[in-house]
C-alpha cells in the first residue's frame, strides 16, 4: 500500500528494531549454551546462533525498508486505520483476569467473566451503548457456553480443568 502515512513508518521501524532486539536476546542466550558438539561437529548452540544472526539481519532489513518508503508489498489492512483502544483494554482485562483467577474460582466462572469482559469490549467497539441489559445477556450467555464446555471436556473427555468445588460440576 503506497498510501500509508509516515507515522506508520515510525511504527514499522520500531517493529524492525524489536525483531533485531529479539535477535540480540537470542545471541545473549546462546552465549550460555555450551557447544559440546562431540561427534556431530555442531552442538546445541549452533541453531541458536543461526537464529540470532538471522533475526538481527531481518530486523536490519526491516528497519531499512521502513526508513526508505515503508515495508514492501503490504497486504491491505482489514477494518479501520484507527485502533479502538478501550475495546482492547476490556478484552485484555478479560484474558488476564481469566489467567489470574482460573485456579481459584474455577473454569466456569473464570471463563464466563472473560466472556463478559471481552464481549463488552467488542460491543463498545461496534458502537453499541451496552446498557445493563447487555451485561445480563452476556453473563447468561457466558455461563451457557462455559458450563457445557466444562462438562463435556471433564466428563466425556476426562481432561482436567479447574473447578470451584470438588464436585466436578461447578
Amino acid at each position, binding site marked *: 500500500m503506497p498510501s500509508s502515512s509516515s507515522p506508520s513508518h515510525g511504527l514499522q521501524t520500531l*517493529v524492525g528494531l524489536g525483531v533485531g532486539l*529479539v535477535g540480540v536476546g*537470542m545471541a545473549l*542466550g546462546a552465549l550460555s*549454551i*555450551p557447544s*559440546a*558438539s562431540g*561427534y*556431530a*561437529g*555442531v*552442538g*546445541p548452540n*549452533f*541453531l*541458536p546462533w543461526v*537464529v540470532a544472526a*538471522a533475526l538481527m539481519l531481518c530486523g536490519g532489513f*526491516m528497519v531499512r525498508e521502513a526508513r526508505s518508503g515503508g*515495508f*514492501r508489498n*503490504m497486504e491491505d489492512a*482489514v*477494518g*479501520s486505520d484507527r*485502533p*479502538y*483502544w478501550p*475495546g*482492547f483494554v476490556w*478484552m485484555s482485562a*478479560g*484474558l*488476564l483476569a*481469566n*489467567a489470574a483467577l*482460573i*485456579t481459584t474460582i474455577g*473454569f466456569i466462572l473464570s*471463563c464466563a467473566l*472473560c*466472556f463478559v469482559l*471481552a*464481549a463488552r469490549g*467488542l*460491543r*463498545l*467497539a*461496534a458502537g*453499541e451503548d451496552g446498557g445493563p441489559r447487555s451485561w445480563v445477556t*452476556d453473563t447468561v450467555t*457466558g455461563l451457557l*457456553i462455559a458450563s457445557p*464446555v466444562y462438562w463435556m*471436556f471433564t466428563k466425556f*473427555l476426562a*481432561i*482436567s*480443568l479447574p473447578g470451584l468445588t470438588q464436585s466436578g460440576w461447578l
Partner: protein
Amino acid sequence: MDIWNQLMQGFATAGTPVNLLWAFVGCAMGTAVGVLPGIGPATAVAMLLPITAKVEATASMIFFAGIYYGAMYGGSTTSILLNTPGETASMVTAMEGNKMAKSGRAGAALATAAIGSFVAGTIATVLVTLFAPVVADFAVKLGPPEYFMLMLLAFTTVSAVLGQSTVRGLTALFVGLAAGLVGLDQITGQARYTGGVPELLDGVEIVLVAVGLFAVAEALHAVLFEGRVVETANKMSRVTMSASDWRRSIPAWLRGTAIGAPFGCIPAGGTEIPTFLSYATEKKLAKPEHRAEFGTRGAIEGVAGPEAANNATVTAALIPLLTLGIPTSNTTAILLGAFQNYGIQPGPQLFSSASALVWALIASLYIGNVMLLVLNLPLVGLWVKLLKVPKPQLYAGILIFATVGAYGMRQSAFDLFLLYAIGVLGLIMRRFSFPTAPVVVGMILGPLAEAQLRNAISIGEGSAMVFLQRPMSLTLLVVIVAVLVVPRWLKARRSAA
C-alpha cells in the same frame, strides 16, 4: 493387491460406529469452523489437541482429519455468501462466487463448490491411497542429509516464496524456530532459553502458539480495528445446478484437481498458487460467451475450478505429511503435533509401524468426503445460519475455547498468561502483514530439522560437505536455490524488458 487389502482393513477400522461418529463430529465441526469467520481449521485442531491425552490415536486422528477438510467445504460457503474475503485459499472462490451470488445464483455457486470439493477430494484421496505407500518406500532410503534438505525446502517455500515479502516471511520463520528452541535439546539434553522458568523446560506448547496467533490475535484484531466493519450477506437461492451448469462445472472440477493435486504432493505448501492457476486456466479456456461473465455476473467455472484445486491440494498435502513427516501449512503442522503427542513420528516408517492407523485415516477420508457432501448440499441452510451469530458473542466465545485448549494441555495458569502474550504478538504480526504459517511450521519442524542437521554432519564426520557429496541431497539443494532465485530472476527480467 496389498494396498487394496490394507485399505479394506482401514475401512473396517474407520467404519466402526465409534470412529464413524468421530468422523461425523469432525466433519460437522470442520464445516462450522470453516463457515464461522475468525476461526479456521488450524485453530480448531489446536484447541482440541488436549484430547490427545485421553482419546485413542486412531479416533482422534480421524476426528482431526474431519475438521481439516471439513473446513475447506465450509470456507467456500462463507466466501460465496459474505462480502468479506476470508482466508487466502477461498479468495479466488470469493471473486466469482460473490459475483454469482449478487446476480441471484448463490445456490448454484454453493452447489458447484460442494460437489467440486467432493470430486477433487475423492480423486486426491485415491492418489493418496496409491502413491503414499510408494513415496514411503522411496523415503525409507533417504538419510539425514536428504531429510534436512527436504525440510529446508519446506522452510524456504513457506517463508520466502509464498508470502508477500521475503524478509517478513523469513522473520516469521526464525521467530518460529526460536520458539522451537525453548526447552531441552533433544540430542544432548541441554536446557536452552528456559530462563530458569520450570514451565519452559518442556518447551512452548504448540497449542499455545497456534491458539494465541490465530484465535486470540484474531479476537484482539477484531476489537481494535473491525468494530465498525459492516458485513453484508448475499441472498441465498435454491441449491441446484442446471444442465448447463453441470456441463461447465465438470471439466473445471477435473482441471482444478489436476492442477491442485501435484501442488499438494510437493513439500512446498500453500493453496494460493494452485487456486490462482486454476482460475487463470478457467478464464482462458472459457467459451467466448461465458468469458464475459468472469468478473461481471460471475462465471461458474471460476468457482468450480479453484474450489476443486483447493481441495485437491489440501488432501494431497497429506502425502508429504504422512510419508516424510513434513507439514507445509498451519493445519498440517498442527496435525504433525497431534501425531507427536502420541509418540508417533510421521515418516516413511509410519506405513509399517502404524499401518492400521494410517489406513484407517485414509479410509476415513473417503467416508468423510461423502459425509461432507451430505452436510453441505441439503443442509447448507443450517450452516448459513451460523453467519448470523453476532460478532461480540462469537469472538468472546472463541476465547472460552482458546482457554480450554491452552489450559487443558498442561493444566497451568502460566500458559494462559503466555497465551495472551502470544496473542499480542500475533496482533502485531497481523497488523504489519507478517505471515503466520512460517511460525508454526518453523516451530514444529525446527527441532526435527535441527536433529537431522546434526545427524547429517556426524555422518559427514563433522563436515558440511556431506550435503554436496550425496546426489539426492545435492539435487535438493539445487532445487532450493532454484526456488529462491528463479522467481526473482524472472521478475527482474520482466521489469528490465
